[in-house]
């Protein structure tokens, strides 16, 4: 081993307790960082996927203005043929047409206002997780049957069960009075109260008939293979829109503007906390290295008298810090990965979190996932700040007066 390396390594272990304590601070922060960052990014991914899988999709084709106003007459004309054409041209099943209307659903005993989606029974399961959440009865099958699937809370509030009839009242696309009697064929439970209370689905054909849609709908939902591939698909879809019609393709960020922002808000508060942790580690290192420089004043004086430049000594101090930081980096990353992996298999459940998690379409148990990025990014930042903290002690060496230093007690 190179003599300088050996010197630095030995210097480090002169006060092994102090070195271990400083490394301990790094390891502690690194474990937390690895765990939190893994948890966070896993959570964001889930949040995005789960939210988009409810209704938004990766993108939607809509009439201009529909996104904000959701007015009945802001339609996508001939919506089913359009969806069929896109499926064919994109060679993808992840495309489905929908209509949406607001209506008053009445059972024998109760009436509630609900949002009613008209969906393509054959394709909706590809773009939404609602069909898979039907736990009583069945999902829609026939594109023109007068059937409806409703949320679990809504069913309870309306006091209906599978097989009962509902009267749906609303207004058609031209503002005229729309009414129909439909049979409840299925009840879904998403676990999100707002959805279970406010949403009903019927098949698009029947929907168009009830609300006088004349073949039109309100949205075509599309998914790309992955979230990352969505922008490319969006460009493709834009090129395939029927000419002469005024239609827009919205990406998921436009459809769910709260989502990215919620993530951003959460990230900024998380980064504040990480920043504080890193700064505290830096203080610890600064303290240790300053002590280690000061207590060696005499020694440094002697070697400088023998001709060693302060710059070299400074590099020696930096090297010691780097070694210490490296031990902390490796141990912290490994320990962090181990701790996180334990939660990957066993899951993390925070008592009382269920309700908050549901607000963001998250499961009540979280499974953080370690990958190379989440394992090393936190410890790497700690390492950099460790080095920065040692700059001041290293620079102090330049101020050392050889004679005075040799005489220091």
């Amino acid at each position: 081993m190179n003599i300088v390396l050996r010197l630095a390594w030995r210097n480090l272990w002169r006060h092994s307790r102090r070195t271990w304590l400083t490394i301990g601070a790094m390891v502690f922060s690194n474990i937390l960082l690895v765990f939190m960052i893994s948890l966070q990014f896993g959570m964001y991914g889930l949040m995005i996927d789960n939210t988009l899988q409810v209704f938004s999709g990766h993108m939607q084709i809509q009439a201009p203005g529909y996104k904000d106003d959701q007015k009945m007459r802001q339609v996508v004309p001939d919506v089913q043929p359009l969806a069929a054409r896109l499926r064919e041209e994109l060679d993808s099943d992840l495309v489905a047409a929908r209509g949406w209307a607001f209506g008053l659903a009445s059972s024998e005993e109760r009436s509630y206002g609900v949002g009613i989606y008209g969906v393509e029974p054959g394709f909706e399961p590809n773009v939404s997780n609602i069909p898979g959440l039907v736990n009583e009865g069945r999902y829609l099958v026939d594109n023109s049957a007068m059937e409806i699937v409703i949320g679990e809370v809504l069913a309870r509030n309306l006091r209906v069960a599978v097989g009962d009839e509902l009267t749906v009242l609303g207004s058609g696309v031209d503002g005229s009075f729309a009414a129909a009697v439909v049979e409840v064929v299925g009840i879904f439970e998403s676990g999100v109260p707002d959805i279970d209370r406010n949403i009903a689905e019927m098949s698009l054909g029947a929907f168009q008939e009830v609300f006088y849609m004349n073949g039109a709908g309100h949205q075509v939902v599309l998914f790309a293979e992955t979230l990352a591939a969505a922008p490319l698909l969006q460009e493709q879809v834009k090129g395939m829109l029927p000419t002469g019609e005024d239609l827009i393709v919205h990406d998921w960020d436009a459809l769910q503007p709260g989502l990215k922002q919620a993530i951003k808000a959460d990230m900024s508060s998380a980064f504040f906390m990480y920043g504080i942790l890193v700064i505290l580690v830096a203080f610890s290192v600064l303290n240790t290295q300053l002590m280690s420089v000061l207590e060696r004043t005499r020694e440094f004086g002697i070697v400088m008298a023998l001709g060693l430049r302060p710059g070299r000594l400074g590099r020696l101090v930096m090297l010691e810090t780097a070694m210490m930081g490296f031990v902390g980096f490796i141990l912290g990353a490994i320990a962090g990965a181990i701790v996180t992996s334990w939660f990957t298999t066993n899951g993390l459940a925070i008592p009382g979190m269920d309700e908050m998690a549901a607000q963001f379409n998250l499961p009540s148990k979280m499974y953080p996932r370690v990958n190379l990025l989440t394992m090393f990014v936190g410890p790497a930042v700690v390492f950099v700040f460790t080095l920065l903290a040692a700059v001041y002690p290293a620079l102090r060496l330049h101020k050392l007066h050889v004679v005075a230093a040799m005489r220091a007690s």
Partner: protein
Amino acid sequence: MRMFPVLCRLAWRYLWRNHRRTIIMVGAIAVGVWAMIFMTALTRGMVDQMIRDGISVLPGHVQIHNPDYLDDPSISNLVALDDAELNERYGEAGFEAWASRVRVPAVITSERESRGVTLLGIDPAAEEPFSFVDYDDVEGRFLEAPDDKGIVIGAKLARTLETEVGKRVVLMSQDPDNDIADRGFRVVGLFNASMPAFEDGYVFIGKQAAQKMLRIGAATTEVVFLGEDYRDIEPTYEKVVAGADGTVQVSRWYEVDTYLGTMLEVMDGFVLIWVIVIFLALSFGLVNTLVMAVFERVREIGLMMALGMKPGAILGQIIIESMMLLAVGLAIGDVLAWASVQPLKDGLDISIVAEGMEMMGASSVLYPKLYLYDVVLANIVVMILGFLASLSPAWRASRYEPVEAITKV
């Protein structure tokens, strides 16, 4: 005990013997404590605002319902107490405010569109303390009396419905016999709210107008009460219970809005975890500093013991030193936290993530809240844990053999 002042003086002088180390450690403690308190103040501010907003969307602090209403919020589940009876029971009980109201789901229809809303039949004067609507910030006018014949809707809803002040809309709901109850109203005012969801979701009509439309006589669906502070609602709760009989159910706000209730609990837990994590990150540096401080003066300690100082006094002296270090750091951290919260008193604008905050149920201006409780908690936790952390180095210092210690190089 006679020794105490001497020990304090000794500890204080030792502390400043190596002033650099002490200053660095004080700096670390101050930054840590600042972060604890500042972050807590921000979180508290957010949750506080959420709960205030949440409570202003009507739960009040304590509510009375029909025992079946919370499970089945239907017009059939009424509170059959009229105003005279309520007044007799609660008029003189000394609440900050109380109001009875009719609250049912309804459908609002303009000539263009229909939407589901929560219909509130209110007594405008009694309702003002509960309301999220600023009566003066209304385009047109707010309701003036319980028998007002107009309707006030949100500005955003008005845009969706393409209606405006002076135009007519139709409200549709059900009466207790499940017959459709509908009535036309003239829009007299458009209100603005801090959260778009409120503007979309609530419409106000006079209480008597609602009772007439829904054919419920003088009955209401809920009575709400406001105490002084949402954190301390037990006195209010007991007063309400005292006036209630078996026909109604009395609930606290966090039982009605479980999301907000959980939020508060989760945040309390978060504050404590945050304080402890920061302290742990600090503790490495603290122990390190003490170990060094003892190490440097092993000989002096040996000498003092040889001169007759008891091990207990050595132990006490090191602990006092540690406590002094912490106290100085805490004091500076507290002042820093206070100083950084002061300029934010008027609110921290985070509207760039407004929609994300709305997903969480928070508004886009953050008012940090410095609670004495949180400051005291942070300080006490740091002092207690700091005491525990310094036990080990202090213990070791007090166990030296005087002869060995004196001769140690």
